[in-house]
């Protein structure tokens, strides 16, 4: 199958969906699901079949081409699968909303644009799809109106700053090497001066850093995640933000000649160390800010930033020290993160759907009784997020830790560990405040989630466990990517891998955990039967508690909150806000040039002419 045909299906599907929506909403929903599932099927069939094809001759004298290799297949399959699940999830979630035609076609369009990004074989098509993704995202973030409008503006302005930087970088490469085909740039860049390589790294680093929300370029993310419609937040957090990771890997490929060959240029290595440290910073600070959030989506959003830090840490460190374990960990973490964060956002969305949009952690609680499937999703999601053994997050985090420790970077490893502690604290609050504790009176009669929401949650939950027990499945593809990028290969088995820097075998873990659980089960089974008491009895040790008077999910971590709050301000965001205010103010000042007084205007004209002549008379510069 030709790659351009796939894109045609993806983009054409987006348009068709809109048109179908004008005819009937059932037809539209069916078409959207069918197209997204068809794309999953196509990519599943294309596994291991590299493609490369030019699809457009002479766009301003450039040939645009597409490719499918291990890296792009890995991202593409994740994009289409998560996209399809989000579309299925949307069926009920968006049913009674307005502008659903627009919503569905934009969802498909965003997915199509992301596919375009990962399939691009030259930087112009990369940029074109990148920009299309940006404006589609802007429209989707703004969809919820009101506060979403500000979030959308914040997103698009930061995104534009990133993309103009990228445009400058791309065209600078074009001017230098007279080609924009990625493999050719890779071979040309190997002989470029170290200063120029650093320039390329920094300028693309800015663009991808903004998209991947690396501190201090992260400020667009929390509001955008929180305000976007939840199924789209899933796409946004799962894959769209991670286009930044894809971009970083692409840079790694472009400078790949230096890794395998004569050794790393010192600038490349330094840049990647800086990147790794920024990654570490991005892990620590946002994770603790996440702890302070009372809005379920904001909490997850801050984790989205923090988890992005692990990916950047893994990739940056892997490239800096030519360590394939860390690099593979970073890539694998991207996939794992996508799976559990989408799962978590869906679980929040399921609650939102039933409670009428409530996502304030202080007013929920006890929903495990009403929405068991969503609870299981949330439980497995946070297990993955923390990185509990036998969930997928464990494997990728383990790889990163191991690499950091073996290469002798205790501080980076420590930062990653602190991040995990913060994660445990904050996601426990998340799980407890939503699903455990006291069920508020008004939610006593909530229905369980509809099937179209349960299905994606179930699929993703099993993926969390599957990739935790059998990490070899994705790691095989990741290993291919690593070797393609010029790194040494890991010895991957279905249960894990062995390499000179570390061995992981999940079957041992599995066996250990099965044995322990069996022992525990037997012990409990043998022990005396427990007595079921009313929930309130537990809280107050038998004393009478008026119903709904005390809600034990409110004010979670209050003492910690008051202690940490002064240190965990988002200073960067405050700085940007001040900067934006200053820009707006200076724009207002500039506007005063246009006084509206024609006398002034004529004076400008005469002064302009007079100074031209005067300058030439006096200094003769022209």
């Amino acid at each position, binding site marked *: 199958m030709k790659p351009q045909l796939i894109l045609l299906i993806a983009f054409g599907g987006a348009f068709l969906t809109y048109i179908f929506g004008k005819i009937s909403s059932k037809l539209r929903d069916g078409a959207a699901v069918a197209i997204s599932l068809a794309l999953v099927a196509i990519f599943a069939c294309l596994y291991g079949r590299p493609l490369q094809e030019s699809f457009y001759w002479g766009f301003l004298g450039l040939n645009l081409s597409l490719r499918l290799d291990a890296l792009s297949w890995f991202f593409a399959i994740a994009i289409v699968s998560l996209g399809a699940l989000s579309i299925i999830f949307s069926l009920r979630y968006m049913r009674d909303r307005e502008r659903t035609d627009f919503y569905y076609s934009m969802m498909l369009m965003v997915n199509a644009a992301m596919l375009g990004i990962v399939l691009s074989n030259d930087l112009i098509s990369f940029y074109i799809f990148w920009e299309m993704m940006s404006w589609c995202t802007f429209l989707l973030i703004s969809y919820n109106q009101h506060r979403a409008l500000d979030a959308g503006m914040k997103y698009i302005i930061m995104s534009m700053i990133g993309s103009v930087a990228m445009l400058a970088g791309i065209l600078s490469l074009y001017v230098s090497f007279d080609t924009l085909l990625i493999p050719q740039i890779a071979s040309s860049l190997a002989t470029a001066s170290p200063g120029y390589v650093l320039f390329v790294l920094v300028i693309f680093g800015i663009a991808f850093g903004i998209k991947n929300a690396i501190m201090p370029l992260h400020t667009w993310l929390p509001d955008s995640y929180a305000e976007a419609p939840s199924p789209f937040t899933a796409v946004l957090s799962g894959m769209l933000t991670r286009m930044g990771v894809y971009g970083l890997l692409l840079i790694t490929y472009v400078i790949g000649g230096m890794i395998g060959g004569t050794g790393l240029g010192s600038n490349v290595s330094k840049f990647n160390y800086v990147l790794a440290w920024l990654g570490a910073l991005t892990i620590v600070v946002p994770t603790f800010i996440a702890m302070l959030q009372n809005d379920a989506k904001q909490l997850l959003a801050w984790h989205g930033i923090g988890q992005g830090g692990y990916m950047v840490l893994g990739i940056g460190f892997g490239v800096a020290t030519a360590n394939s374990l860390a690099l593979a960990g970073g890539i694998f973490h991207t996939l794992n993160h996508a799976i559990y964060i989408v799962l978590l956002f869906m679980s929040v969305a399921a609650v939102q759907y039933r409670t009428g949009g409530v996502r304030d952690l202080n007013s929920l609680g006890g929903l495990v009784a009403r929405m068991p499937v969503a609870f299981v999703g949330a439980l497995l999601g946070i297990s993955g997020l923390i990185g509990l053994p036998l969930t997928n997050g464990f494997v990728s985090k383990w790889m990163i830790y191991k690499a950091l420790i073996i290469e002798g970077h205790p501080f980076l490893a420590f930062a990653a560990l602190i991040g995990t502690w913060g994660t445990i604290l904050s996601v426990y609050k998340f799980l407890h405040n939503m699903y455990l504790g006291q069920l508020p009176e008004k939610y006593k009669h909530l229905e369980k989630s509809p099937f179209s929401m349960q299905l994606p949650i179930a699929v993703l939950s099993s993926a969390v466990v599957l990739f935790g027990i059998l990490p070899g499945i994705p790691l095989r593809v990741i290993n291919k990517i690593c070797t393609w990028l010029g790194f040494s290969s890991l010895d991957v088995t279905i249960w894990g891998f062995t390499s000179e820097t570390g061995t992981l075998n999940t079957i041992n873990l599995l066996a250990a955990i099965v044995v322990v659980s069996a022992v525990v089960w037997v012990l409990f089974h043998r022990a005396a039967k427990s007595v079921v008491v009313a929930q309130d009895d537990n809280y107050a040790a038998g004393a009478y508690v008026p119903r709904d008077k005390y809600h034990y999910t409110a004010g979670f971590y209050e003492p910690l909150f008051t202690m940490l709050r002064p240190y965990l301000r988002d200073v960067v965001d405050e700085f940007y806000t001040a900067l934006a205010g200053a*820009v707006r103010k200076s724009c207002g000042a500039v506007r005063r040039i246009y006084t509206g007084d024609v006398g002034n205007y004529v004076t400008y004209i005469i002064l302009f002419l007079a100074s*031209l002549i005067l300058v030439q008379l006096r200094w003769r510069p022209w």
Partner: protein
Amino acid sequence: MVNPVLLIVVPLGFAFLIPILSLLSKKAAKYIPPIPLCFNIVVSLLLLPRALENPVVVSIGGWQPAFSINLVAGPVGILLSAVVAFVGLLVSIYAVDYIREGATDRYHMLFLLLLTGATGVVLTGDIFNLFVFFEILCISSYALVAYAGDKAGIESAVKYLIQGAVGSSLLLIGIGLLYGLFGTLNMADIAKALQSPSSLPVFVPMALIISGLGVEAAIFPLNGWLPDAHSSAPSPVSAILSGIAIEVGLYAIARVVFTIFGLSIDSTSNFLMFLAVLGILTLLVGEMCALGQNNIKRMLAYSSIGQMGLILFALAMASSYAVVGGLFQLVSHTLAKALLFLTVGYMTYRTHSLDVSALAGIGKRMPITSLAFTIGAFSLIGLPPFAGFPSKLLIVRAALATKECLFFVLIGGALLGTVIEAAYFFRIVQVLYFKDGNTNIARKQVPAVALIPIVIFVILIVGIGIYPKFITGLLSSAAAELLNRVDYIRNVLG
């Protein structure tokens, strides 16, 4: 053999026909302008193959060039006259329904005269003739700005008139000085005689001419008239002023600078650098003023200033890539800005307010118009896959190809301008679609006559954005003509 003179004579003739015809029927006037404009498109297209080979030089009155008034229909001239006729045609179709009140016959006459002037400017090879056509263009635009007859319109028309008159007199003085120096008004003939623009007797007329044309081309700080005039004129007039009139001014500057004064990148004179800096300054001032502007038409007017700055910057780089980029930007800006003014025309007509906030929720009431607005805005920002993207790409690339620090800094400024531009256009898009507004406005499309030009603009913007080859061939020969002074002189003087 079609004669380029027809491009000027036919619209002029029809313009004078309108008042006569309106004696018979008041209603007929509005159907007249499309006829000569259609004719002009056809003639331009017929001339195109010949012009691409060699500029078509026509002398009037049987005298040989250097003594006669002559027209030079080279690729640039044909390209721009086609753009003028095409955009003019679409806007005149739009105006059939939009212009209802007042002395409509006079409106249509002035409209045709304006386009005649614009066509004349881009085709003429004689500098005094250029001045005359410029005056035709300017005077009709003064009158058109005041067409609505309200206080704002008249006030800004008078302001425009005063500044325009100052500009025109500077231009005329400059031309007079050149005539005194070289004893000829033919551009090619002056160019042949003129060696270096740096000597003061030549520099002074150049400064005068650039300042004079700069007023019409909306170069900072000569553009004080523009925000008022473009925002208080009726929307089709704003579309023409923003889409055609200022571009023609910029063309005239380029022609004068490149052809007459012979500035080029490898000449010792670095006046072009100054123009490039001025371009970016204009861009930044325009975009910064547009940010935070609450009057939608004023915002578009400031955005036009910004775009003119970008085009000036591109032209001033004077490499062939840069000039192609500049001309491409000129075309894409013309299409996008005309589209924006046309859509805004009906939106504000419905809401009875020029306030941005009044447009809230229009996306639901006027879906096609809003979509067209969005596409125009995206194209102006330079987002793919719209026409503004390839043009911006070419300009950035040309700037990076200069490998000069100054241009790197300047293109940084241009990209900053793009971000600001994105900020205010995205805000409007949000207001259109994602803000709940006045629900009293009925869900009603614009009339079909007005919808045709809007849809055609949209198709062109998307078409050129996806397939830029459609015009790049023409643009590169136009750029070559503009930059190649020696060939121009040889073609005209034989």
